Structure formats: structure tokens, C-alpha cells
């Protein structure tokens, strides 16, 4: 895909993916840790966390932060009981 095609696709995705209610990056960050915990535990996402998921689908920067957080969390061990 040429550079222009990539930009064209990105801007069209940005436009057509608009939802009536979206949260911003800072609101997303407020629930970031809870979202990451739910994701790693495989737990069902309550409503505020679903909004985080929708934001992540539309915000490459927050998605990059999530990937790094998930990687950092791998250093945390589960202690056997």
C-alpha cells in the first residue's frame, strides 16, 4: 500500500468509525489499569471498560500504551498458594 493509500484509509477509518459517545484519552487512562487486569484475567468487561475498548480501537497511541503495559505486567508473578 502506498503512503497516500495508508493515509487515505486512516482518515476514512477515523471519519466512518465515529460513535455517538466516545471517551477521550485521559478518561481512557483512568480505567486503563482495570482494563488491563480484566484483559489478562479474561474477565467480562463492565460498561466503563467497554468504552475503553472502543477508544483503544480508535486511538493508536493509547493502544501502544496498552501493549507496553501488558508487556510490563508479565514481570509480575503469580505466587503459588
Amino acid at each position, binding site marked *: 500500500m502506498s503512503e497516500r493509500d495508508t493515509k487515505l484509509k486512516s482518515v476514512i477509518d477515523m471519519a466512518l468509525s465515529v460513535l455517538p459517545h466516545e471517551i477521550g484519552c485521559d478518561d481512557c487512562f483512568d480505567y486503563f489499569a482495570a482494563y488491563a487486569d480484566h484483559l489478562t484475567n479474561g474477565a467480562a468487561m463492565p460498561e466503563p471498560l467497554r468504552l475503553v475498548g472502543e477508544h483503544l480501537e480508535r486511538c493508536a497511541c493509547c493502544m501502544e500504551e496498552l501493549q507496553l503495559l501488558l508487556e510490563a505486567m508479565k514481570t*509480575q508473578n503469580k505466587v503459588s498458594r
Partner: protein
Amino acid sequence: MKPGAQRGRSWPRVFRGGLIVRIQREGSWQTITNPPKYRTDEDWVSDLSAVGFRGDEALTELRRILVTGLARAFHQFPADSAMVQDSAQEALLLIISRVETYRGDSRFVTWALSIVTRVALSEMRRARWKDVSLDEMSEAGRIPPPASEASPANISYERSRLIEVVRNAIEDNLTPKQRDAIQAELGGAPPDEIAKRLGTNRNALYKLTYDGRVRLKQAILRAGWSEDHVRSVLSGT
């Protein structure tokens, strides 16, 4: 029982040299001797708020967790241990000043790691984009016309029309700030750096961009293009 023998069969076990626990690291079990003190989320909050040895010990352990997590998260980037140490220190101060705002809807350590990864990533983005102006960011995201030098003209008629519709929507329907913000994002600039140059914050930038996206969608639809038509032309590269 001989001195030094393991007592009991369950974990954790008491050994002459101290305590041995079994931990799971990425799917496999390992044993470690004298692990750091286990803290619940509530312990973290109260230990970090304590003065003296208890507070210092919690700070030291949290710092170790942040540094280890960051080193792992950023291992694919060029190694920069100074950045890891500086970010961990900055995040530690932030965490201490905000510890009362921890709501308990996540593990405390996850919350702390989310802060340190954001601090480190912001610092990395700041360093990478520090010499790039808003005009340059915006220019980098401009979509060239269908038959420009930078892009070959051998594209379909429909695709050329779509490019023109989108270019016109950006030129005619966005405010200058919306245009700069959206084009800068298309050019790959990170939102925190775009926000700084626009004299705003990341949340306000998201709102600015959101309003721009709504205007672009309306302009594309007004030009007679349905979403399905746009998608079919886009996929026919």
C-alpha cells in the same frame, strides 16, 4: 528432620536459609528464596503512606517493580537504561502524590505500572518529536492529489474521485486547528506532542479531533458516497 531439610510438602516452604516460594513466570513454575514481602493492594497504599523503614521499604520495592516492568516493556526499543531509571523515578513521585486517588478497581501494581509506562512513553515521544513543528507534523499527514509527482496516476477513476472528496472534505469542512490535528495524527505524530503545540491537553485534543471526524463523515456522505461504496473503493487497491 535434618537441619536444612524442607519442612512440609506445600508451598511456601521454610528452609534454613529462609523462605522458599514457588512462582509462575510466563507459564512455568520456578522457586525463589526470600521473595519480597507480599503486599495486598491495601498494604501498598498504607505502606507507601507510612514514614520510616516501612515506607522506605515499600518505595524501594515499588521502584524495583517499575524498573523491571519498564525494562521488559521497552526491550524492543534501543536500550536506554537512563530513560528507564529517570522514568521510574518520575513515576514514583507521581504515584506517591496520587496514592490517595487509587480507587482499587485494579491491582495496585498494575495501576503503578500504567503510570510508569505512560511516563516513559511520553518521554520517548517527546525526545523523538522535539524538533518537529506543528506545521511539519501537519504537512506530513497531507494527502497528495490523485496525480501528484509523489503518487502514480495509474489508479482507478473511482479511487481518484474518492481521494478528491476526502481532500476537499479536509480543506473545506475542518477548522484550521481540526485540520492540523487530524493531519498531524495521519502523519504519525503522537497526541501528547500535537496537544502541546496546540496549547491544549490530550483530552481536549481528542474532542477537537472527534468534532473534525464527525464533520468529515458528514462531508463524505453529503458528497453522495455511502459508507459501503467508500469501503468497496478503498478495498479495491
